[in-house]
């Protein structure tokens, strides 16, 4: 019995030593000489491997930054949206460079076709993937541009930043969003856009992507942009353009003055995280009045942090 044990110990030990030696030589032989800075940069990155920077992983991004810094002495066009300014400044410091502050972005859902605004006309019975449903048909509410509500964007988000609101059937982004853009790519209808997060999270955007003329657009959805052009005229900063019956607010030009919000006859323009308006201009639609005051209230909830979207009220508060 003892012999067996000793024999086992010796043989296993020998195998171990032999393997170690082989491994050592192999490692030596195949060692790639790499810029140590790559490791340093990688250390500084959030290690989310989310692909938001456009590279498959953080390591690749680190390699690209170091390469760019070595070759052309700048790292412009390379940005880790997850890490934001802090990380990019650190990375730049490692590489002996400086970066301009970039304004943080956040995902914005540009559809407000909730069950209430765009009543259900047919019932979908099939796998819960927007990509398939998009190929199959226009949507339960009939809008061929609107959100299908099957949550491909939710599945794509690695940061737990986007959830479906069970009442509205629309996704809601919370402040865990790091603007990696995964949901933007996942959405087959191009509903999600990355926009400036804005000072104190204040944002204004057109919550609709319907390119139909007014009539057909309104037919399916009460809050569709009908391309009437009132907001375009109202905007003093030329931030609003109307293309294909659809208004778009350029977030680089928008000064968040809120003038366009009340003029929209269908209430398609959303303002987020603004304090309540003192005096409200009288609007033609009663529905608009009811909805307006809800906005800031629900925003406060979100600001207090982490109110789960299940608790969110129907209306136009997805951001």
């Amino acid at each position: 019995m003892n012999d067996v044990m000793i024999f086992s110990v010796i043989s296993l030990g020998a195998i171990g030593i032999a393997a170690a030696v082989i491994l050592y030589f192999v490692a030596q032989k195949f060692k790639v000489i790499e810029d140590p800075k790559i490791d340093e940069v990688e250390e500084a990155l959030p290690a989310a491997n989310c692909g938001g920077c456009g590279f498959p992983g953080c390591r690749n991004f680190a390699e690209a930054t170091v390469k760019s810094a070595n070759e052309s002495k700048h790292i412009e066009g390379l940005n880790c949206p997850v890490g934001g300014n802090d990380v990019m400044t650190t990375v730049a410091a490692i590489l002996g460079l400086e970066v301009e502050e970039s304004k943080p972005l956040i995902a914005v859902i540009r559809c407000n076709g909730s069950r209430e605004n765009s009543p259900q006309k047919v019932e979908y019975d099939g796998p819960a993937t927007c990509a398939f449903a998009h190929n199959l048909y226009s949507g339960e509410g009939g809008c061929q541009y609107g959100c299908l509500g099957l949550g491909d964007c939710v599945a794509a988000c690695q940061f737990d930043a986007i959830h479906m609101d069970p009442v509205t059937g629309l996704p809601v982004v919370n402040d865990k969003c790091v603007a990696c853009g995964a949901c933007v790519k996942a959405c087959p209808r191009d509903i999600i856009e990355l926009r400036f997060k804005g000072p104190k999270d204040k944002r204004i955007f057109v919550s609709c992507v319907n390119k139909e003329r007014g009539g057909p657009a309104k037919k399916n959805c009460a809050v569709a942009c009908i391309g009437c052009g009132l907001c375009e005229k109202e905007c003093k900063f030329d931030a609003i353009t109307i293309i294909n019956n659809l208004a778009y607010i350029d977030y680089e030009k928008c000064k968040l003055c809120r003038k366009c919000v009340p003029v929209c006859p269908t209430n398609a323009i959303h303002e987020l995280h603004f304090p309540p308006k003192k005096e409200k201009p009288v609007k033609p639609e009663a529905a608009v009045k009811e909805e307006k005051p809800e906005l800031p209230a629900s925003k406060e909830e979100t600001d207090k942090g982490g109110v789960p979207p299940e608790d969110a009220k129907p209306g136009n508060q997805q951001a």
Partner: protein
Amino acid sequence: MSMLTVSGSPHVHGDSSVKKIMYTVVIAMVPAMLVSVYFFGLDALRVLVISSLSCLFFEWLIQKYLIKGPVTIFDGSALITGILLAFNVPSNLPTWIIIVGAFVAIGMAKMSFGGLGKNPFNPALVGRIFLLISFPVQMTSWPEPKMLFGSMASQPDAMGGATPLGFLKEGLKNSTVPELMSKMPDLMMDFIGFIGGSLGEVSVVALLLGAIYMLIKKVITWQIPFAYIGSVVVFTGILWLIDPDMYVDPLFHLLTGGLILGAFFMATDMVSSPISPWGQIVFGIGCGVITILIRIWGAYPEGVSFAILIMNAFTPLLNRWLKPKLFGETIKAA
């Protein structure tokens, strides 16, 4: 009128369902159950009931309280596992051991992988092997068939409580095949079921009845059982021709032990067997060869369970290597 439904085609569904398939298998096992009760008496009934009920119970327990998902114990799959487990143990097995077996089968081999359809191994077999390794004595002391009505005198005393295969394996150490065969019941007895063994192993007739039913109902395909049995026949036939003193004839191998049970009821378990016809044939042949290797040269007299489990492990590989025939030969654009 309610809202119209929108979905992708096809808009009609055939009448097949998981439940239907599973209960067809259960029905196919009825003859063998009856025979086992007939031969082993109420003890057999006890084993069957305990095994099935505890399988159902564990599945319910796990689905309800662990997974907290929908409870699907009535889809028939747990029942099959229960019956198969019972078929694979001797009728005098203590109740608590059966329950342990059921727990291993359902809890470890099935639910821990995600339930029906996800288990890589046949749950009943895992349960059985677990019991065989943990409780070798209880699992291999076979009671003599004592008939429900009257007694049976056909089992020669020389065999004691051993199965024909066990008897052969032991005997071959100092005897030859013809000599041993003369001490055993003739093959007709094996065929009908007057032999010792696990519940479901004894009667080939009853098993074949069920197998034919399953084949007619298209619940199983011919590939696995036929490849399995065929390879056993060929393999043992060759050995037998080489040396009839050392090796038994193929018929004996066919009619004894769990071969028929394994080939038709356990190797064909669709969850853990390959998808393509060719994969299934290779799977069957593999089972056959391993079974005989174990029976003749292995430590155990019986190799069906091990063979099937080993081939289960190869299923993903077989699925990858042996693809079904594609319509039109593939010309891939370079």
